[in-house]
Each structure stands twice: as C-alpha cells, then as structure tokens.
C-alpha cells in the first residue's frame, strides 16, 4: 500500500467504516510509515479538538430570548390559521 492509498481510506478508517481486511492493510502501513501515522493521529486530534471545543455555544440568555420570539410567532401563526403552501 502506498501513502496515497492510505490517505484515500483515512476517513473510512477513522470512522470505523471499513472491513477487517482493509483495516489490517491500513494498520500494516501505519506500523512502518511514520508520516502516515502522524497524519492519521493529528487528523484524529483535529476532529476531537473541534468536537470538544464548545465553539459557538448559544448563551442561555440569548437562547431564552430566541425561543420566546419563536414561540410567540408560532402562536400568532396558529391564530392566523394554517398556512397554505
């Protein structure tokens, strides 16, 4: 297996979406190719950092304000009768 082949399968590998045979081939490649090992490891860390980052959390006060606005507009729509699309 070449590095380019490994990269093609990287997403499936990280997502666990591959069969055992391909997985064994990829892990065999990882065992001797340090560059691919680093790329694989740091890609996994990239995903985990973003997933755990709490980037763009909705603050509680804004959340309440938005929800109140949504609900009151829904009430108004309900009074106005069903929408005909």
């Amino acid at each position, binding site marked *: 297996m070449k590095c380019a082949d490994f990269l093609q399968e990287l997403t*499936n590998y*990280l997502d666990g979406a591959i069969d055992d045979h391909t997985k064994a081939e990829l892990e065999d490649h990882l065992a001797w190719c340090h*560059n691919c090992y680093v*790329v694989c*490891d740091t890609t996994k860390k990239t995903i985990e950092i973003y*997933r755990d980052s709490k980037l763009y959390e909705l603050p509680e006060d*804004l959340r309440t304000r938005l*929800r109140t606005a949504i609900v009151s507009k829904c009430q108004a729509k309900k009074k106005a009768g069903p929408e005909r699309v």
Partner: protein
Amino acid sequence: MSAIQPKVSEPVSDELALVQAAKGGDVGAFEELVRRYDRNVFRIAQHITQNREDAEDVVQDAFLKAYGNLNQFQGQSKFYTWLVRIAVNEALMKLRRRRPERMVSLDEDVKTEEDSLPREVADWSPNPEQQYSQAELREILSRTIQGLPASFRTVFVLRDVEGLSTEETAEALDLSIPAVKSRLLRARLQLRERLSRYFRRRESADGRPNNDGDGNQ
C-alpha cells in the same frame, strides 16, 4: 489506532409524538423541539455564516419555517435531519446575501486535491490545546475553519461537530454519499494542516523536544 467515537445522541423515541402534537397545533410540543435542537442549529448556522447576528436570525427563521411546513415532514427521516436541511439552506442564503461577490454553493466541488495533500507531518505536542488559553484556542479554531470553502466547512460541521452520520449528512445537504466522503476527507486534512502550525511539537535549541507535558513549560 482506534476509530473516533461517535457522539451519543439523546433518545428520540418520543420525537414523532412531539411532531404530531405540533402538527395538530400544540405550540408547547414545538417549543420542546426548539429546546432540543436550538443549540445545534445555532452552531451549524454560525459555522456556515461566520457571523453571530446572522446565526441568531437563522435560528429564528429555520424554526419558523419548520413550524410553517410541519405538514410536509413525512417522518421518513429524523426530524433533526429535516430541520438541519432547512437551517443549512437559511444559513447559505444569509452567506450569499453577505458575500454576493462570491458564489456560495454546496455543489461547488472546489478543486483542491493538492491542497489536501499533507505537507506538515511534524507530530503535535501531547496536549496541544493546553498550550493556549481558552480565548486563544477559540480564536485559532474559529479562524482556521473560516479558511475552508463553505462546502467543506458545512460537511465537516455536520459530520464531525454535530455527529450526523454520512447518510444523514448526505440527506441534509442533498449530496451523494461519495461527495460527502470526499469533502469530509479534504476538510479534515486541510484543518489538520492548518492547525499543525499552532500545535506542532516545538523543538528547543539543542534539538530536544520541549513542551513535553512534563510540567516544565
């Protein structure tokens, strides 16, 4: 190396009942659906629009549009996937309005094969995120993801931040499964490349790695 662990989503067994009640005019049931997903919709919207006010508008517009079109929700997909589809469209409309000079489309298949090829292969520090304050880290992550094309950013956010499956992402974005996989791979590799500039293991003057997590930073 183990596969990344998918996010565990909350049980949704009562969700269809809430949708049915909301269809029948129960605004309280719809409010419960808003509570369940408003944070997700806000995150997705801010990732796509990169603008706080636009993201707030998208939350309102997406839920109101969902409420007004509940009768079109047939229940073949999850309510959340259906809602995400609406939210992504609203967010893209905002983005187009703000940046009319650049066509923004999820169909754009940005030709950046070579951009995705790893160049930076230095290993990272053991706990790279701990080298920075919370505020610095947010700035780094935010600026890094802003540099991706909208079509890559959106796939990455739905799959890796929000934890939708490949199939759900394809459905929400109206893309084929191979298109989702290809964009996800390129988004992940490009983000990795850019983050490496901040997180790579630093070498000290004598060539030995420092910042090695031994507490002597």
